[in-house]
């Protein structure tokens, strides 16, 4: 009887997990206005682009995440440009011409941003390769027998 009770609760737990999963997926999309495109390829491009562009008002959010008025305006431009068959590059360039490189949510990789991109790897290298070597080179060297006797003598004074 306990076994059958366990089976039932397991089923409910599975249903609950599925429900939580679904909510987690649809909730972000639910905050944005509903957009319908003629072709699925356009929908995919739209979702990708609004992830790549930054909301200038809530600057740590992409256009996909932001509820700001400006974000809505910028999304409307993206939708319009997709419907008019403009390339992704053209759309991104439109935004960077007006708002600068900062509007790209993921920074471009060039000579200015190379340090930003590679710093985590540089730091990891530093911590795991250089630091142990540094510590080892500064470790105390054990005293020789003669030095130990000398230290004992000095300490007794």
């Amino acid at each position: 009887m306990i076994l059958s009770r366990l089976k039932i609760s397991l089923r409910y737990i599975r249903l609950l997990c599925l429900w939580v999963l679904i909510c987690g997926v649809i909730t972000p999309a639910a905050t944005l206005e509903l957009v319908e495109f003629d072709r699925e390829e356009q929908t995919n491009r739209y979702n990708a682009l609004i992830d790549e562009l930054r909301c200038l008002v809530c600057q740590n959010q992409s256009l996909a995440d932001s509820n700001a008025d400006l974000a809505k305006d910028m999304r409307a431009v993206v939708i319009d440009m997709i419907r008019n068959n403009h390339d992704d590059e053209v759309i991104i360039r439109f935004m960077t011409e007006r708002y600068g490189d900062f509007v790209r949510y993921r920074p471009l990789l060039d000579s200015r941003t190379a340090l930003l991109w590679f710093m985590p790897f540089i730091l990891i290298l530093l911590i795991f390769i250089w630091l142990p070597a540094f510590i080892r080179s500064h470790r105390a060297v054990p005293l020789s027998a003669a030095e130990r006797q000398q230290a004992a003598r000095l300490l007794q004074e």
Partner: protein
Amino acid sequence: MVLGLRIDPSIVPSPLIGKPAPLISLPRLDMPDKSFSSVDLRGQIWLLNVWASWCVSCVAEHSLLMKFLRDDVPIVGLNYKDMTGDALDWLAKYGDPYYTSLADADGSIGLDWGVYGVPETFLIDQQGIVQYKHIGPLSRADIDNTILPRVRELQGEKTQ
């Protein structure tokens, strides 16, 4: 990093600096059947001030603009995402320093200028090139230490 900490991260530099000002062709706020084009101001140094009746910090800046009024540097007001009635009431209440005010009801002109926060002020030179952008309300210091010197510089360059 220490230097970086002193920079305000919310200020986004404008890519328009040094480039031709985006064309503005809009109906005038007070006379909607008449329109204004930014080309009309070629040959003059001018300021574009983005404002709205719903913008709280615009009020503080406004009294400075009223004092700044000069014949040689007209201020064009871009009334951003606002209702005409509210905008006109606001000007009646706080004063109108503008050469003309334009209704950018849907914000599309603002988007062309890279506006992301109100108020913002742009300085445009005689050739129609954007020379400077100020984000947030202007202060006395901004006008005296940045805007006026730039204006004098640009006026000096022209007479050379």
